[in-house]
Structure formats: C-alpha cells, structure tokens
C-alpha cells in the first residue's frame, strides 16, 4: 500500500494498491511503449529540429500501413492467431508507420505509399516458419532508396543529419529506448551493436590520427542511436536466441562500418541491416529459442 499523507476515499484505494499492475506498468504490451516513445520523438523532431514534414505525408504513411496490414492479414492469416485478435496486429503496423515517418523523407506521395506498402507486405512475403525476417520499416526504406538510386528518381531519401549531434537527444533516446528494450529484453542487441560499431570507429579514428572529438561527433548522431535502439531490436524479426542475436548485431556493425568508410555510403546502417536480415533464419536454425511474443499466450509458442 502506498502511504499517502491524507486519507483516500475507499473507492479510490484500489488504484493506489501496490499490487495494481497499472501503477507499475500500465501497458502490458510493450508495443504501446514503443508507439508512445516513437510518437514523442516524432513530435520532438517536428517541433524542435525543424523538420519540414507535411501532415498529409504522415497521414498517408499510417493509412497505407494500416490498410496493407489489414488486407495482408486477411489474405495470409497466421495460423496461431484467432480472428478477433487480428486487429491487435495494427499496433505493429503503427510502429512501422512511425519508423517510416521518422526516417524516410520524400517530396512525393507515391514514394511514401510505395515504402509503406512494401514495408508491411514484406512481413507476409518473406517469412519462414511463420516468422518474418525483414524489419518492415527497414525493408521499406531500403527498397525505396534502391529504387531512387538505380531505377528512377523516386523522390525519397534519408536525412542522416536531421537530429544533429546533441547530447540532449542522445540522452532522451537512450533513456526512452532503454525502457522499451528492458520490456522486450533486447538490451543486449543494442549494446552489442553500439559497442562493436564504436570500437570499429574508434580504431579507425586512432589509425587516421584524428582527435577524439571527431569520434564523439560520429557516434552521437541521433540517427545512429535511433537505429540502434529501435530498429535492430525489433524482437519479432531478429534471431530468437541470445547468442544468435549478439553475433547478428556484431555482423551488422561490421557491415555498416564497411559501407560507411569503404564505400562512403551515408545510409550504411540501413543497407547493413537489410543484407544481414535473411541470416536471421540461419541464426534461428543454429540456436534454438522460443520466438518472442508481444503478449504471453497460453498455448505453446512456435519457433
């Protein structure tokens, strides 16, 4: 029981009961936290970082994500999910929509629709044993970027410097990201990725002979932290077992480092994740572990 300096009316005492789970963790489903925090970042970005995001673009992103999710889940129903729970999958679609709004920039609506559709569709097209292996937002972004570069002017790009290198934002990301990661138990992936990437960049910095503030500048990029905390830790598409995840995170860090410093590609991280994603299947085969579920289920969990 919480000790309060005044007397509570009896009807309200149950809210302040320590056993009330609402007080300790209001959301059972960690996705609500993720939606909440990503929305906070989006609002922060639009209001303080001066992004020129059009509200219509954001609306179209969400609308396309939701529509695609509903259509797809009706065409490819998941065997373990009862029909009435299908609507809960919209939460995942919302997270994808938020991720796309935060990261992808476009000045044409066609590109946005394309990205959102491909993002959600990839969950249903690329799956093995019922598990999708591409992070949806990442897939959508990379496909649109590749189209933009090699096929036609797709009018879509990623602004790597959009957050700047403010330590304040770094703290906000780390803080809120940490909460979500604790809920889903995937802190290890983020940490491994950041550690591996920092070590590689640090070694490069040392070899080149730059001072340490150059390294600090490279590592406090808001985009890097968002990627590390929210994108590579999507628990439904990364390897299930801890060992597999750690190796996977290191592989992404190495590949991202190579793309950035050997091929001089600014969008290195996204491509790295995209290329490593199919290896999730291999990782799951070598190290067996139960698949992550957002909400605990009573029946047995599929791998």
């Amino acid at each position: 029981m919480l000790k309060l300096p005044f007397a509570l009316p009896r009807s309200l005492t149950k809210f302040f009961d320590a056993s009330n789970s609402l007080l300790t963790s209001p959301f059972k489903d960690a996705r609500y936290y993720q939606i909440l925090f990503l929305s906070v970042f989006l609002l922060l970005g639009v209001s303080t970082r001066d992004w020129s995001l059009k509200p219509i673009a954001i609306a179209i992103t969400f609308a396309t994500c939701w529509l695609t999710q509903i259509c797809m889940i009706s065409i490819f129903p998941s065997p373990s999910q009862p029909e009435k729970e299908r609507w809960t999958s919209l939460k995942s679609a919302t997270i994808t929509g938020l991720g796309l709004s935060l990261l992808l920039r476009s000045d044409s609506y066609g590109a946005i629709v394309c990205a959102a559709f491909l993002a959600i569709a990839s969950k249903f097209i690329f799956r093995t044993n019922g598990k999708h292996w591409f992070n949806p937002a990442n897939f959508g972004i990379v496909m649109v970027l590749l189209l933009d570069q090699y096929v036609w002017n797709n009018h879509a790009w990623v602004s790597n410097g959009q957050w700047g290198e403010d330590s304040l934002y770094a703290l906000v990301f780390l803080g809120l990201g940490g909460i979500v990661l604790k809920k889903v138990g995937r802190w290890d992936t983020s940490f491994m990725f950041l550690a591996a990437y920092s070590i590689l960049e640090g070694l490069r910095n040392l070899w080149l002979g730059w001072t340490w503030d150059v390294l600090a500048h490279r590592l406090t990029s808001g985009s890097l932290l968002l990627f590390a905390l929210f994108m590579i830790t999507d628990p439904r598409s990364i390897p299930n077992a801890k060992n597999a995840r750690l190796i996977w995170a290191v592989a992404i860090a190495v590949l991202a480092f190579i793309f950035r410093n050997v091929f001089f590609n600014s969008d290195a991280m996204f491509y790295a994740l995209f290329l490593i994603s199919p290896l999730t299947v291999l990782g799951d085969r070598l190290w067996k572990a139960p698949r992550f579920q957002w909400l605990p289920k009573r029946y047995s969990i599929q791998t």
Partner: protein
Amino acid sequence: MKRFLMGMRVLLSTALACLVVFTYSPAVYAFCGFYVSQADASLFNKASQVVIARDGKRTVLTMANDYQGNVKDFALVVPVPVLLKKEQVRVGEQKIIDRLDSFSAPRLVEYFDSDPCARYEAYDRMTSNAVGITRSAAPAMAAKERRDYQVTIEAKFAVGEYDILILSAKDSDGLESWLIDNDYKIPQGAKALLQPYIRQNMKFFVAKVNIAELSKTGSQSLRPLMMAFESPKFMLPIRLGMLNANGDQDLLVYILSPKGQAEVANYRTIKVPSGSDIPVYVKNEFGDFYKSMFKTSYEKEGKKVAFLEYAWDMSSCDPCSAEPLSNDELRKAGVFWLDSPNNSGIMPSGRRRPIFVPNDGRVFITRLHIRYSRDKFPEDLTFKETSNQESFQGRYVLRYPFKGETTCDAGKEYQRSLRPRFEKEAQTLARLTSWDIGDIRRKMNISVLPDPVEVPFWENLWK
C-alpha cells in the same frame, strides 16, 4: 632568399581559397518589376566559395581564389581524393561563380500597397538583394630540416597561370618537411592535420602562380581552379583550413546536381529564416540585415548547423535576382551532364523563365552557407545528393504603405492598421537580427503614425 609564402593561405585555401563577392546585376527581369542594385559591401569575412557539380561519383570541383597579397607568395594545398592528370585540371572563370552567387543570393522583394479607397489590385515590384565581399588573411610559420621525405611527385604540369604538383606522401613528417624545404611555409600543427588525409590515401594538389603566365593573362587577380575526377567521396576537407584561423570561417558551397537538393550528411542542415515582412528602411541596410540575421540564427542553433540559403531548379526562378545561367555558363561552372553544349538563349522578360531542357538536362542548385569553427565542426563536411526537388529561397518582404490621400472610411481603417503592422514588422526584425527594438522603431518613425484608436463597434451601426 626565402620567399614569403602565406602559410595560412596555403591551409585556409586547402579547402577553398577565395573571396566571396555577392554582387548582382541591375535590370533583371522579374514579374512586374525591376531590380535595384546596391553597392558592393563586405559582408562576410574570410569566406570561401566552392562549386561542386556532381552526378553519381563524377565530380567537378571549382575553388574560387581571391588571394589578396603578392601573387608571388601565393600557394595552395588541397587534399584531393584521386590522382589528377593535367587534362583533369582547368582554370575557371570568376565571373561564373559570381553569376551563381547572384542567382542564388538572398533577395528582397518589394510590394506596394494600393490606394485603399480605390478598387484595383496592388502591383508588385521586385528589388534586389544582398552583396558582400570577403577577405582572408594568411600568416606564416617557421620550418624544420629533414632529408628523406617519402613524398612522390605524381604529376607536375602547368595550367593557365598556375604551376601544379600532385603529391602523394607516406607520412606527415615527410610531407611537412618537403613543403617547408620547398619554401611553402605551413603553420604549426599542420603535421597532425595532414596525417589523416595521408592515411585516407588522399593526394595533395599543390598550386603556385607562374608570374610570366599571369602577366600574359593581363590581370592581377587569380582565376578559380577547376578539377574533374571520379570518387565516391563527396566531401570538403575543411579541417585543414581551420589551422590558425581565429574564430569562425564562412564557406559558401554551390552544389549542382541533376537529381535534386544536396544536404550535409554529417551535420544538421536547416533553412535560413525566410519570408518575413520587414520594415522598409532595411532596403538600404540589407547587407547589415542579412549579416545580423545569419549571425543570430547561427548562434541560436548553437553554432553547429549548416544553413540552406537557396535550393531551386536552375531553369527558373521566382522572383529572380539574376538571370538564370545559360547552358554555356553552366558548362563553365562544371555541369557535365547537359545534352547540348550550345547556348539555349536568353529568355524574354516575364515572370518565370522555363528553359525547355530534357529531363536529364536538369540542373538543381543548392546553396549552403556554413560558418564553422574548430570546436563545433570537428569532422570534415560530407555531402549527400537527394532527389528532393522542393524549392527554397531566402526572401524578405518589404511592404510599402500607400502614401496618398485616404479620406474614405476604408482609408481611415487602413491608416489605423498601419501602426500595429509596423510594430509587428519591427518585432520580426528585432527577433531575426537581435537589433535593439528601440533603434528599429526610431528608424521606422513609428511614432509619427496615428495611434490605432479603437473605434467602438456601435459607431458604424449608428452613425
């Protein structure tokens, strides 16, 4: 006899040696109006201008050169990503850079209020824009002695009035000694900064002036250097130029791309404040206004951002502060993807001037103004092409009030509305430039205007 070479010049111009001249020509076509030119004035000190025309990995880099001292003492050292041959280096024209500058410079727009008692629409007139010249200084330093430099002269050739060497080095000690022993005075600390470029496998482009050739050109000013190469690196090595710089340095980069806007990839890029109504007296102080405004915005953002001042498809402009560049001029600026090298002609006067070019002949200009200092910009600038085709320009609006007789009711309303409007303009100006609001009000003569006395609502009802 030791020749005096400006060591600072060497390194300041490592990234970009030049003088910025923001000039603009009078009599430019624009909708319903004409441009009023203003005198040249120095706006930004120690600024450099660079033009980068880039498509994929192919780059044509132009560095404007405005060296102020004795040309005998001039020397330029720039890290370049690849070995350059003689055919890849050219001397450019300062005029072209000036044209790019005036085309993309921030602009003033004038609107004249119509007679509130009459019914016809207001007509618009265009005004011109800011101007500035900059200068850079260059001290020099002492030297050392060394024998084995491990510096290879990969190429040696002359282009125009420049004698050019392309060097590759194994370590910075050797390079520093070589430079010093060959009479290039480089500042202390250069060795530490040369090392990262050597390790990144970059070559060093070293240019000196050939006095005989320069006298043949008949002018004392040095022309810009252009280099064409192919490299995945899309960057500008500004760190080398920060040596010995006191305080902030300004850099103007004009990025020409067929795809769309370019942005800085490793720092935040934000748009310069634009579109505000400002008091009309600023017309005579536009240079000061822009300088103060830029400084205020820069400081507000913590001095760590790059500013976008202009992003537009070069075939049109609205309003235009200078004529769009012809295809020929674009080629001289380094644009290499245009189909026909022929001059596509001057446009007739009118609002917009679409030059009909095929799609792959599109040139998009991005003007970035970056003020950097050692502590806030530790990394070299890296750029990124995007297919963003949104247009942006720095544009400031002057609204001239109607000066004639206004005896009708609408006229009296109008007069009453002037004072709050001017007050708002004054506040906008104070906010943008951090000038003292009292000074602004005084210059505007706000107190001369009639007080906006509140008209009771029944007065119109029961006259």
